[in-house]
């Protein structure tokens, strides 16, 4: 199988900030290493203050890393010439309020040297994609947060970039808006583009991302395909039983170390998926009534919460 090309490479990136004028420094990124491959949707996930936006700003050349290397398409992120191949949507984007949606897109198109002939068609096309055609000639000062977010997405795509970096792209959008932006992101992948997405909305990540990195307190805790985070062993089945005889309950506790929770006359059991068939056989044989049987797949949320708890307990991100 042909190996996919690495388009974003972050190698041991460290970032320190000086809060105030003192010599004390606060380390917000602790040797972050990650790779993004061509044509994939990469989710960069973490709680607030984990360092997601700092990492993205380093990639955009808005802040400089204290240590390590970061490159996009093989070019150092400090350069500006290759930026005609990347698009960026910042978190809570803000635009010149006196311009209209159409004018601001023309402004960005000119900055990206989109040809005059192509510009008008491209602006109209993108206004259509983000469903803003009806408000194309209204001043941005009259726009809602969700509408500004759509303008942000459109400006990130104005020059048809190869890689698109999105910081919280679903922020401020209603469910319909979120679906529309998800569809835009999926269409970008279908067109062979690469998408790097900062977010903490895990359902979106599970739905559309190919690969994920979880960052907690400036350290990458997990990185890879979502399936790789959720091994088979992590799957479980929840059983709610009625009239479970005491000897059967004791047998389950002895043989399978299953914890039982009483729910009035009923009991609830959480059984690892590999034991589910055997446990079900025992309870049926004992004459218990199965009230419900719910198979659970460990979600990204479980992995995320575990990673956050691990990060908290290790007490990283202290002042240096």
């Amino acid at each position: 199988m042909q190996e996919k090309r690495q388009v974003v490479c972050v190698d041991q990136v460290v970032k320190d900030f000086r809060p105030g004028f003192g010599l004390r420094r606060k380390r917000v990124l602790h040797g972050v290493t990650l790779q993004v491959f061509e044509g994939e949707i990469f989710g960069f996930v973490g709680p607030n203050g984990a360092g997601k936006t700092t990492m993205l700003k380093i990639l955009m050349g808005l802040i400089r890393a204290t240590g390590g290397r970061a490159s996009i398409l093989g070019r150092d992120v400090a350069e500006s010439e290759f930026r005609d191949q990347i698009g960026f949507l910042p978190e809570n984007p803000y635009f010149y309020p006196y311009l209209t949606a159409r004018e601001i897109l023309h402004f960005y198109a000119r900055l990206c040297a989109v040809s005059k002939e192509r510009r008008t068609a491209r602006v109209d096309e993108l206004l259509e994609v983000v469903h803003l055609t009806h408000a194309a000639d209204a001043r941005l000062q009259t726009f809602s947060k969700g509408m500004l977010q759509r303008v942000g997405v459109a400006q990130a795509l104005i020059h048809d970039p190869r890689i698109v970096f999105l910081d919280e792209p679903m922020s401020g959008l209603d469910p319909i808006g979120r679906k529309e932006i998800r569809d835009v992101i999926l269409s970008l992948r279908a067109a062979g583009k690469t998408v790097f997405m900062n977010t903490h909305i895990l359902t979106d990540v599970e739905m559309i991302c190919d690969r994920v990195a979880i960052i907690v307190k400036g350290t990458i805790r997990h990185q890879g395909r979502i399936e790789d985070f959720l091994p088979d062993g992590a799957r479980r089945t929840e059983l709610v039983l009625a009239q479970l005889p005491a000897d059967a309950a004791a047998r389950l506790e002895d043989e399978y170390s299953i914890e039982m929770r009483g729910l009035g006359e009923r009991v609830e059991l959480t059984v690892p998926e590999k034991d589910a068939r055997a446990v079900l056989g025992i309870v049926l044989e004992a004459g218990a009534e199965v009230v419900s049987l719910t198979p659970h797949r460990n979600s990204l949320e479980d992995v995320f919460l575990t990673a956050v708890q691990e990060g908290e307990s290790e007490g990283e991100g202290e002042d240096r």
Partner: protein
Amino acid sequence: MNSLLRIQTLAANTFREAIRNKLLYTLLGFGILMIGSGVLLATLSYVEVDEILQDMGMSAIRFFSAGIAIFVGIGLIHTEVERRTIFTILSKPVSRSEFLIGKWAGLTFTVWLQLLLMALAFAAVSWMAGAPLGSAHGIAIALIGLELMVLVALATLFSAFTAPMLAALFTIGLWLIGHLSRDLRALGEQSDLDSVSKMTDFVFRVMPDFEVFNKTLEAVHGLPIRAADVQMAIVYALAYTVATLVLASMIFSRRDFK
């Protein structure tokens, strides 16, 4: 070529933004009012009525134009960073130097335009009062334009790394020193202490010399303005502007946008 297009785009947008600044219209209004009020002031004197009228007008042009250059200029970069509009711009193939030059060019164009309006007001008032008008007046006003170009570059420099209040203090301070440094050096030369004269000479050489752009006296009193002085002022303005913008770019390129 693309670089020029980007600078032009940023400059055009800066112009659009600047002409929405209410402070610009307030200062422009006061400037024109001061130019007009020269007519009243001149009636208080029986001699040199035209000179008083035009001296007052030229001073108003210089003072209020500088006010516009400084107070609109100091927020130039700060506002972009504060509102985070700079994030989307710098993520495009725009270098930080291009961004600064675009902002400087846009504001310089704006202050030149308001200078033109004040110059028209000055010409109208002079014409109505019957005061003489000649090419010397035009040259003196054009030199104010060069002074404003340097002043906008200084405001851009300070705006690139500090908050508007400090940027205003620094720019106003340099503008005042720039108009007084010649007098300061002349005073130092009369001092008995060698260290004092050396210090005032040093200040004169390091600080901008805005008096190089001041030909009000010659214009108002009908004295000739030497071509060499004008050439010197042009070279000085260009050199000072380029040096200031290079320094601003160096500082700005090292800045983190948190």
